[in-house]
């Protein structure tokens, strides 16, 4: 059953710049919905470096990615933005009245007067192993996630990786598969020690085959693999396999954004520096994903871009309405919106 949501602004990407946009939009009484491919807010700050210190956020001598995210969430709480996680916007269509229709891969349709793309380096997608021709097997016998365990029942499964995903799925799938081989480049794992110990017990019992090495080549036809070739220190090795699960983490790819008819420059979206509007009026781009002469990929630049974008968005959403520029320090009107007056 498809869901329809109508709102002022859809923000694509809930990283720091997108989150701050909800603040600037909120001060102008503009309501927004977030769509993000990750399962939580924070973008790169949460996914890549939650514990890493950041030293160049104005007013914070040091703050971690997670702290910054938490602070931004507290800052925008008065405006109650709504979040739609673990989904991707597949298409944006401009309607006759100038508003937009967005379709997600979770079968939702959003109608919005303004779209703000704050997607950073693009959407986080699974890293492909460097194996020629792997694409033709993807989603039929090569998977980057387990959606249905039944797809693996009775299969000869090869899992690649040394992190929690690789170890967890080794433990979870082992009881239902025909054979299971875990492949990792070294005999050290980044996964929870308890999972590693359990995996080693299964190896000792002959229920899991552990192989040191790296995946080099796949054999198969019509989307179905039949052998996985490995490079190992002892030479090349071929393992019969009907399912492959590589777990190399996530990387950012521009994804569907490339197909939305926006002017691009080397995987970034070209915007002006007055409104940070793209080549399609009503679609804005802020943060790491945009490009203009002199662009610096800094979070603080994205904050500035969010503020100017919000003014331009207001003019589209409430045409003809006079916007009085106010400060949060002195305006009781703004303070009421923030719940502090």
């Amino acid at each position, binding site marked *: 059953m498809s869901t329809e949501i109508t709102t002022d602004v859809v923000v694509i990407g809930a990283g720091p710049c997108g989150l701050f946009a909800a603040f600037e939009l909120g001060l102008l009484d503009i309501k927004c919905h977030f769509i993000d491919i990750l399962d939580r807010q924070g973008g*790169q700050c949460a996914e*890549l*470096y939650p514990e*890493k210190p950041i030293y160049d956020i104005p007013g914070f001598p040091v703050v971690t990615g997670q702290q910054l995210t938490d602070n931004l969430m507290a800052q925008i709480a008065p405006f109650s933005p709504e979040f739609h996680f673990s989904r991707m916007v597949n298409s944006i269509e401009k309607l006759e009245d100038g508003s937009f229709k967005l379709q997600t891969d979770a079968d939702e349709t959003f109608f919005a007067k303004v779209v703000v793309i704050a997607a950073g*380096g693009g959407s986080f997608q699974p*890293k*492909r*192993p*460097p*194996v020629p021709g792997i694409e033709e097997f993807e989603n039929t016998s090569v998977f980057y996630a387990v959606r249905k365990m039944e797809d693996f029942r009775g299969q000869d499964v090869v899992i*690649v*990786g*040394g*992190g929690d995903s690789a170890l967890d799925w080794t433990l979870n799938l082992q009881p239902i598969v025909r054979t299971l081989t875990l492949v*990792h*480049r*070294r005999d*050290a794992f*980044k996964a929870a020690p308890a999972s590693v110990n359990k995996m080693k017990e299964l190896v000792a019992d002959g229920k899991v085959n552990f192989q040191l090495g*790296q*995946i080099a080549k796949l054999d198969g036809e019509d989307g179905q693999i039949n052998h996985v070739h490995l490079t190992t220190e002892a030479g090349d090795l071929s393992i019969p396999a009907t399912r492959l699960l*590589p777990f*190399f*983490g996530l*990387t*950012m790819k521009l994804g569907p954004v490339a197909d939305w008819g926006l002017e691009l420059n080397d*995987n970034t979206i070209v915007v002006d520096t007055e409104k940070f509007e793209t080549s399609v009026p009503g679609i804005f781009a802020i943060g790491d994903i945009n490009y203009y002469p002199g662009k610096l*990929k800094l979070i603080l630049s994205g904050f500035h871009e969010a503020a100017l974008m919000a003014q331009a968005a207001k003019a589209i959403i409430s045409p003809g309405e006079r916007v009085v520029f106010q400060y949060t320090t002195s305006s009781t009107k703004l303070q009421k919106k923030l719940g502090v007056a």
Partner: protein
Amino acid sequence: MKINVTDQAGDVHELEGLEGWRVMEVIRDWGLNIKAECGGALSCATCHCYVAPEWLDAVGAPSDEEEDMLDSVGDVKSNSRLSCQILCSDALDGLSLTLAPSAAKDF
């Protein structure tokens, strides 16, 4: 100091390195094909390179955390390093390395 970088296409580039810069930053600044998506926070492995054997001792071994990050690429060799973890210094003048396929922007 200078560093010699062979890109994924096999072209060799002699780059001017600045003392204290990360080798990744030099490569990125010169516009070579390096994704370096986390910006040097040792949180990805998209600046993966192979250090020329004769430079391995001077560069030193990867830290445990760097080894952990190298688990996230499938083209690791015994001379793999993350170029964000190598600091330019006079001792590395002439350093020679090759960008890994997994460091490419469109990988």
